[in-house]
């Protein structure tokens, strides 16, 4: 159903870009109207009443007016500003990564209450939890599922046999797992360890409560991250920009921790 001329909706600000002298174009994620662009006028002036409410990653109640090319923000009030996310680079960089993924995977103006809830829960977890990377892995797998890119993790995509408990293969181009004989020849396939497969399956099937109890060794966490990332990059047909910053912080943090 087309929204009325002036309507109110909850929204999470995914990203913003400058427009002209003092305006911005915001990309909003709303539950009922999906992802949409909205023009926010005058928000780059210091006296703007809306600027603070429309910062990226804010959850707010916005009043939108339908415009000729895009909506115009008529009013706005913050519901949740995730302050702790903004004060720690580790949390902030991952929250931006989550927002970028939502922006890339969501089609415009298609109702998507489920991804909205998922993103909101993820931002709350990134604000409070300790294993931030695990929060992201769960988010990635759920987002793939909700946007119709569920990877196959039970059977071999070559011979359709159930996978045996042995090192198998994972291929983004094929859309999931391969058994050793089929996987060796599959395009872009990489080895998937027994534990790697277990974790991926858990991410796909279990609730966050169960997943949150996982405590992975760094090498395993890295393997799972690599497989999921390559799958996402293949599906999006482009890199995820914010991932580079997350990795840079991780790299630079290690020598600091070693010193202290």
């Amino acid at each position, binding site marked *: 159903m087309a929204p009325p001329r002036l309507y109110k909706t909850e929204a999470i600000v995914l990203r913003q870009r400058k427009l002209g002298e003092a305006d911005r174009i915001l990309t909003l994620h709303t539950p009922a109207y999906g992802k949409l662009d909205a023009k926010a006028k005058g928000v780059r002036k210091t006296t703007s009443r809306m600027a603070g409410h429309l910062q990226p990653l804010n959850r707010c109640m916005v009043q939108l007016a339908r415009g000729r090319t895009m909506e115009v923000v008529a009013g706005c009030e913050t519901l949740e500003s995730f302050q702790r996310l903004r004060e720690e680079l580790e949390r902030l*960089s991952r929250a931006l990564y989550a927002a970028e993924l939502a922006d890339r995977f969501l089609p415009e103006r298609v109702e998507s209450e489920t991804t909205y809830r998922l993103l909101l829960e993820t931002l709350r977890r990134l604000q409070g939890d300790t294993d931030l990377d695990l929060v992201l892995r769960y988010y990635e797998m759920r987002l793939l599922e909700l946007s119709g890119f569920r990877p196959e993790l039970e059977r071999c995509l070559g011979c359709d046999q159930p996978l045996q408990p042995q090192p198998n293969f994972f291929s983004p181009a094929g859309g999931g797992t391969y058994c050793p004989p089929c996987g060796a020849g599959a395009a872009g396939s990489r080895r998937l360890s027994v534990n790697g497969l277990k974790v991926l399956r858990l991410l796909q099937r279990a609730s966050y409560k169960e997943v949150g109890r996982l405590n992975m060794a760094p090498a395993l966490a890295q393997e799972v991250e690599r497989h999921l990332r390559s799958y996402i990059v293949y599906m999006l047909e482009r890199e995820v920009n914010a991932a580079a910053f997350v990795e*840079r912080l991780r790299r630079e943090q290690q020598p600091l921790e070693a010193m202290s």
Partner: protein
Amino acid sequence: MGRLIEEFYKLPGVGPKSAQRLTYYLLRMPAAEARALAEAILEVKERITFCSTCQNVTDANPCRICASDRRDRGMICVVEEPLDILALERSGSYQGVYHVLHGAISPMDGIGPEELKIEELLGRLHSNEVAEVILATNPNLEGEATAMYLTRLMRPLGVKVTRLARGLPVGGDLEYADDVTLTRAMEGRQEMQG
């Protein structure tokens, strides 16, 4: 004339109608003034470079602020763009020197620390002359991310790192302020003088 209109149209904030109006205005302008404008444009492109110290745009190297002996070299104010320096200079409240990053960290747009003039800033801190670095990046998500990242890099160097106060703008309304702004304003409150 069509060519000139098209050239104006490429400028920021200039639409098709403004481009036509500017072109007609130039047409009626005395030849000397038109020549002066054309020369000024060429000169900007040919003579303006980046100051090797603060990375500001300048026609002399080092720039006038860096070269001045009336500025305090113990303080570096870090800003995103050269235009920010103009704003701070207009206020007349700062006597130190500057450093221009030429942008802010924006992970989603693929703008990382390597795109900014951060190496150059760290290089300036190695002489013991600098006592304080003032982070004056914009109080938005990108500016805050940049400020946090710079703080992380500079802390171990033993230099005092400060951030411009964030809070209520002059001429603003408390009623319309968002939570983050109000929290910052409360944290940064100061005792009344007089």
